[in-house]
């Protein structure tokens, strides 16, 4: 846009904005008069030189206002973030501080610049400010007004020459510098304060508030996660499950972090989500490996497959042990029995991977041909393969357990601080022996395949009727009347040390309070555990009944 075009644009702008041009400086009834003055002056002539003088002033004022508004709104935004941080002491606010700061800076900046830019000064305002900054003794403003109201005034020409000669462009630039907005130090200070708070005081809560309850819930979930991680670690070590072990360390680390660090809910959920994503990725890798082993999408439950694979391994090992005498001495007890065992294995376990079945078929062929060593090698290979598959499945089970536990923790944390704690909400069975909470996986729960998981009773109000399940409140029952009158001192009848004496405790009238009955979860858990082991060890029924009675007797104490 050339200078002359800009000049024409400014003149048009001046006419269209006549209503708010000079009116900014006047109040009440005077404003109407000034509007009329500007309207009547719309035919006036503004000199190009005057416009050229005022245009840079307008631009500079506009920029300065935009920057000021930007910094002001950013400061307001940061102060609001600071307010939010203070509020987080009391209430859980699931917003990331860094996100809030970014929004405050970016949003405040954009809105501020937009608003400031919209506050375009009128020509008259620019002239007045120019007069004041350069000490022009109102020359510019008078010139502008005279140009519009009395364009034929004999004073116009000398006034213009006088005014323009006093307003040097260099002086104009000096008088309206584009400088750092004056609130910038406050903005930097408040920003630093917010960041310092975030680094040192994040997650701090006032005891007894909702935020404090959330923090407590996070710590409790951290405890649970650490417990689960410990169990996973143990299982991983015993069963040689690399992925389970690896992720158990991370889970444990997360649990410790939840307990030790002051985490906000949003951060805790983000960390859970991150670990869940990693577990999911590992599970997908394991799934691919299982698929490569022809154990991709399975129809049967994982627990059944695990048991079958365990059984297959044991039976293969048993057959191999039967072949060993043939290998050593060339003769054995019952070759036919071994062959029939292999046949049975192949027929019964037809859901097994094809590669494993082929290896078994190869072993059978070699065994029938009298190639004892070859048969033993094939069986060894088949056993290794079955064991590897077994471990893979266990690994997957471990990850599934960790995944579901993380999901539960995330739900608990997201639900907030009210209600029962995670430890309380868990079934008494889970709480009993330090086992992972709600672990329903047969592989990890029982340590060995071969058992069906009992369906847990649904939890909820008035459903805790089965021993070993339910909630604490259901054990304690409704409040019962107690003696309201304060206890009287013990009364003694008879003379101490001489003959019989009797102590009596006199109680007063009833008062309402909650009676407490200590639940005996440990015994119930022990009975169930004993049942399981007896089932697994194939203890004969009469002996099993003896053991059960022992525990029942124990439970009555």
């Amino acid at each position: 846009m050339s200078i002359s075009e800009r000049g024409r644009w400014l003149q048009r702008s001046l006419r269209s904005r006549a209503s708010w041009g000079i009116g900014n400086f006047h109040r009440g009834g005077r404003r109407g008069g000034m509007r009329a003055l500007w309207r009547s002056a719309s035919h006036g002539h503004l000199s190009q030189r005057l416009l050229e003088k005022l245009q840079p002033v307008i631009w500079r004022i506009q920029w300065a206002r935009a920057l000021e508004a930007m910094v002001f709104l950013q400061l307001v935004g940061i102060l609001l973030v600071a307010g939010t941080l203070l509020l987080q002491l009391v209430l859980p606010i699931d917003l990331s501080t860094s996100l809030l700061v970014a929004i405050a800076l970016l949003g405040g900046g954009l809105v501020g610049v937009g608003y400031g830019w919209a506050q375009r000064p009128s020509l008259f305002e620019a002239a007045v400010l120019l007069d004041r900054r350069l000490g022009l003794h109102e020359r510019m403003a008078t010139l502008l007004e005279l140009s519009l109201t009395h364009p034929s005034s004999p004073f116009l020409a000398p006034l213009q020459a006088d005014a323009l000669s006093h307003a040097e462009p260099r002086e104009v630039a000096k008088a309206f510098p584009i400088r750092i907005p004056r609130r910038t130090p406050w903005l930097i200070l408040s920003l630093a304060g917010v960041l310092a708070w975030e680094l040192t005081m994040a997650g701090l809560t006032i005891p007894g508030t909702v935020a404090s309850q959330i923090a407590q819930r996070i710590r409790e979930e951290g405890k649970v996660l650490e417990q689960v991680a410990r169990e996973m670690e143990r299982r991983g070590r015993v069963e040689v499950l690399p992925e389970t072990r690896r992720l158990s360390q991370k889970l444990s680390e997360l649990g410790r972090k939840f307990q030790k660090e002051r985490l906000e809910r949003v951060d805790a959920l983000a960390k859970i989500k991150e670990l869940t994503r990693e577990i999911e990725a590992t599970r997908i890798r394991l799934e691919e490996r299982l698929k490569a082993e022809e154990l991709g999408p399975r129809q049967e439950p994982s627990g059944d497959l695990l048991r079958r694979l365990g059984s297959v391994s044991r039976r293969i090992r048993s057959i191999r042990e039967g072949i060993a005498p043939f290998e050593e001495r060339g003769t054995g007890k019952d070759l036919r029995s071994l062959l029939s065992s292999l046949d049975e294995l192949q027929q019964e376990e037809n859901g097994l991977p094809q590669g494993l079945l082929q290896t078994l078929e190869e072993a059978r062929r070699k065994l029938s041909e009298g190639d004892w060593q070859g048969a033993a090698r094939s069986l060894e290979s088949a056993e290794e393969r079955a064991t590897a598959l077994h471990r893979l499945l266990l690994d997957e089970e471990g990850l599934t357990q960790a995944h579901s536990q993380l999901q539960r923790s995330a739900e608990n944390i997201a639900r907030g601080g009210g209600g029962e704690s995670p430890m309380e909400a868990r079934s008494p069975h889970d709480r009993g022996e330090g086992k992972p909470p709600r672990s329903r996986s047969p592989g990890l729960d029982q340590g060995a395949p071969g058992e069906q998981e009992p369906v847990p009773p649904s939890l909820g109000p008035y459903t805790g009727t089965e021993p070993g399940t339910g909630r604490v409140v259901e054990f304690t029952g409704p409040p019962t009347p107690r003696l309201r009158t304060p206890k009287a001192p013990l009364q003694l009848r008879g003379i101490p040390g001489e003959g019989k004496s009797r102590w009596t405790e006199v109680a007063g009238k009833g008062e309402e309070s909650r009676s407490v009955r200590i639940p005996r979860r440990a015994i119930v858990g022990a009975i169930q555990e004993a049942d399981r082991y007896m089932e697994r060890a194939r203890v004969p029924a009469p002996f099993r009944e003896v053991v059960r009675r022992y525990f029942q007797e124990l439970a009555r104490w």
Partner: protein
Amino acid sequence: MENLEARAEWFRSIHRRIREEIGKVIVGHEQVVEEVLIALFAGGHVLLEGVPGLGKTLLVRTLSQCLSLRYSRIQFTPDLMPADIVGTNVVVQDREGRRYFEFQRGPIFSQIVLADEINRATPKTQSALLEAMQEHAVTASGVRYPLEEPFFVLATQNPIEMEGTYPLPEAQLDRFFFKIKVQFPRADELVEIIDRTTTANSHAVAVVADGPTILAMQDLVREVPIASHVKDYVARLILATHPEGEGAAPMARKFVRYGASPRGAQALVLGGKVRALLRGRYNVSFEDIREVALPALRHRIILNFEGEAEGLDPDAIVQHILEETPEVVDARGRPVA
């Protein structure tokens, strides 16, 4: 004279020469002379206040000498009557022996009138000046007699002698464009006064301007443009002197009974215009207004009992108002930096 720059320069040169001529006689009192000339060029009247012997009368007489205007001096005394100032109808007999009333013009029918010790006359007599000062005309026996232009009243009064004096009524005071306080001269000025008045040397004052010249200068003054926000400032200054007004200054609320009249605003603007021209500018600035605020407003502010009891000087109130009133305010009344 079409060229405005030339007219402005001519204006300044006349002013400069008058000052030079007065300076030949009057020692010091630059501020007083400047303010008297501002009032003259603005077409207003001046009340000079000062103790006797400071040269007030001499200043007026010298001014009349260098202006080539008809000059008259009225010594105000308690027995002075309005007719002594305005004039009166006297019975005159013509050649045929017929008698008729003829208006005998008083000393007011001059162009420069010195009302010496104006507060010594009764209010009735003082009021004889009202019409003349405001309308530049007098009315006697129902006949209106216009005064010759330019018409310039310079009154003097003594602030310390209270006995036998009649303070000027507010209406009379308001008609004075400026009230100028004549201060006691400094030591060096006193020495100069002694030198000039106790030797045989006499200074002849040259005539610098005549009536039409003064009138042309007054016309030029009225053409000087003034920006609307400067007029707004003048209005706010005047409103700040009114104790019950919205924009009253705190001191005005406390110590002022009546604030300045619209004539005060006129005096500020016209005085500012003269000052702008004298400073070589073609527009009125805030500084011009501030500079003439004291002589233009000090006699228009009437103190209340509390102000009188405190012994306050209206100058202090004007000064306070000048400090309190921002020059430019935005739509919400906040000062604009």
